[in-house]
């Protein structure tokens, strides 16, 4: 997590300064600068390099690892960023709050590459696809270190439903010895738990949350780490054997373990009862200082080979139908990257929740995590 970023501070100052003189300088050409705020571990090495080479636009690239941080920056206003990448259900709240600028599709000729099915799913939150373009998408699931989990479970066979591993005390009590990591955010844990107990993943009913809370409290003693980014390395080097995490992150851990030749076999699972999807979407803040450059960036990302390179690097599916021929074979065939139709059917699309539900979520999560 980035706590102190002088660059961000400089960007804010820059943004403010530009906003001040925006009135006078409308007709002028935009400075060749683009400020991007994206998730950590979420880009290919050459994505920025090639864009800079081609357009001469200097990219400043900052990272966050939770929607909460991004949201707080956006509502404070004047972030100085031209591109932000919230998950779609948070983007919905931000759109409703008037925080984004409508996309100018005439500047986005590569739009036609996008997969209509993903667009349709996104249109549920963003009618007419006016504000958001999917960067990559994935789902929240369970990742395991195959050998270590087998060893820890002993005589107990692997459950049929992967969620049982992390939500049932009889498995968790055994897995504790080799390390269990949970995503450190209420908005990731509770939808998964709700779905597991058979409630709507983004329920608006308070009692549903109590039920999900009872489920997770029972396994709380066995969670050894709460992490939303560090768990990738912990899985890769074998210090954690189970993670409730994001599908692509678990695949990154798998790749890192293979690269390090340390013998850890990491695998992302597809739970039988389904899981919650997430779409991380590019949006342009309403007060973005360089909207034209931002459009150029979005259009660049929507090129088949650029979108494919992202997927090849971070193992998250992209929404770009034309990109498939550039995706590496082993990635394209990985069923946890591009879901098979029958798996995709079981997945739940994200929805937004209101402030009251969020408060309940946070409070229950604090009790879950700390016991207070």
């Amino acid at each position, binding site marked *: *997590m980035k*706590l*102190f970023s002088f660059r961000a501070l400089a960007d804010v100052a820059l943004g403010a300064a530009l906003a001040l003189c925006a009135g006078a300088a409308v007709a002028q050409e935009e400075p060749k600068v683009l400020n991007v705020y994206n998730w950590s571990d979420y880009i290919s090495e050459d994505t920025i390099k090639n864009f800079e080479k081609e357009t001469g636009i200097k990219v400043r690239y900052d990272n966050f690892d*939770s929607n*909460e*941080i991004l*949201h*707080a920056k956006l*509502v*404070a*206003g004047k972030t100085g960023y031209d591109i932000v990448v919230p998950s779609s259900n948070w983007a919905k*709240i931000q759109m*409703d*709050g*008037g*925080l984004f600028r409508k996309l100018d599709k005439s500047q986005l000729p590569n739009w036609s590459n996008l997969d209509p099915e993903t667009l349709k799913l996104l249109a549920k939150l963003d009618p007419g696809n006016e504000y958001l373009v999917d960067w990559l998408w994935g789902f929240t699931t369970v990742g395991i270190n195959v050998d270590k989990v087998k060893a820890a479970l002993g005589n107990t066979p692997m459950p049929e439903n992967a969620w049982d591993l992390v939500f049932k005390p009889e498995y968790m009590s055994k897995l504790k010895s080799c390390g269990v990591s949970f995503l450190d*955010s*209420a*908005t990731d844990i509770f939808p998964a738990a709700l779905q597991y107990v058979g409630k709507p993943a983004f329920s608006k009913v308070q009692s549903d949350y109590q039920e999900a809370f009872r489920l997770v409290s029972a396994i709380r003693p066995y969670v050894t*780490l*709460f992490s939303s980014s560090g768990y990738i390395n912990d899985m890769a*080097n074998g*210090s954690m054997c189970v993670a409730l995490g994001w599908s692509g992150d678990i695949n990154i851990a798998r790749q890192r373990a293979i690269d390090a030749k340390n013998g850890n076999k990491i695998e992302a699972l597809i739970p039988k009862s389904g899981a919650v999807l997430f779409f991380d979407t590019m949006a342009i803040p309403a007060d973005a200082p360089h909207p034209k450059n931002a459009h150029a960036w979005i259009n660049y990302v929507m090129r088949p080979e650029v979108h494919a390179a992202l997927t090849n690097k971070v193992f998250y599916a992209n929404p770009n139908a034309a990109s498939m021929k550039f995706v590496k074979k082993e990635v394209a065939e990985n069923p946890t990257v591009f879901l098979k139709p029958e798996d995709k059917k079981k997945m739940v699309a994200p929805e937004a929740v209101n*402030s009251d539900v*969020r*408060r309940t*979520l*946070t*409070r229950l*999560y*604090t009790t879950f*995590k*700390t*016991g*207070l």
Partner: protein
Amino acid sequence: MRKLITRLIPRDPGRSFVIGVPYLWLILFFLVPFLIVLKISMSEMQVGVPPFKPLFGWADDFLSVRIYLGNLFSLFDVANDNLYAVTYLSSLKYAAFTTLLCLFIGFPFAYFLARSRPTIRPVLMMLVMLPFWTSFLLRVYAWKGILANHGVLNNLMIWLGVIDEPVRMLHTPFSLMIGMVYGYLPFMVLPLYANLVKLDVRFLEAAADLGATPWKAFWLITVPLSKSGIVAGSMLVFIPCVGEFVIPDLLGGPETLMIGRVLWDELFSNNDWPRAAAVAVVTILLIIVPLAIFNKYQAEQQGGGRT
């Protein structure tokens, strides 16, 4: 009337200017921000930019003021939710422990520094200050590397045969205390050193001449004379420790919930700026009130109300 004018126009403008600068500094960088936070804490939450409703309204020549105290009250509503009360207490507890440990380690440290040969003092001082040259965040991360399950310390102990399997140290109250004491120790050592170095050694010689053991002389002379250094160092450690967020977040575990994290949750997870501001206001009051009482008590003790 004349008296009033002479009182308003100081006889020595240079003097009041010199005094005025720190006052202006405090007003500008402490009082004004505090009032802004106080104002937000008394407003109502809303979804939008800014995420709170204005306190003052102006419509049809009516000035309306809407002060909402629910956020401040809810912090004290222990019957409904004691999260805030419990985390305030735990923050105070960790801050107090850190202060005591820093004092315990820092005093001999400063004493040694003050008694060392004047020629090597600058070198020793440098060694105390040197860690400041590295980013604070980096140093906290270094502790993560040392204390982790497969970290330097565990590996060393396994290699030495002291333990068979890694001891869980990271993300526990233990690692939190290590980080806090390590981070704040220089703030204890420096004021103590500044005080102890001025201590007149002849007092100790006189005590020895009169038959006091070094131990007795230490308690009867050194400690009382260094009281102001102890107080200054303790304040410098205790106050920032109460609101500390970075160290508990990186080194602490789930069981070491402190008020900084609760504030973070209000601001980020709930996006409730007013409640977050209320938590901050109460934190400040929690620190300032005992401090003011202590100052008053000290002023009275030293007589004439002068410190």
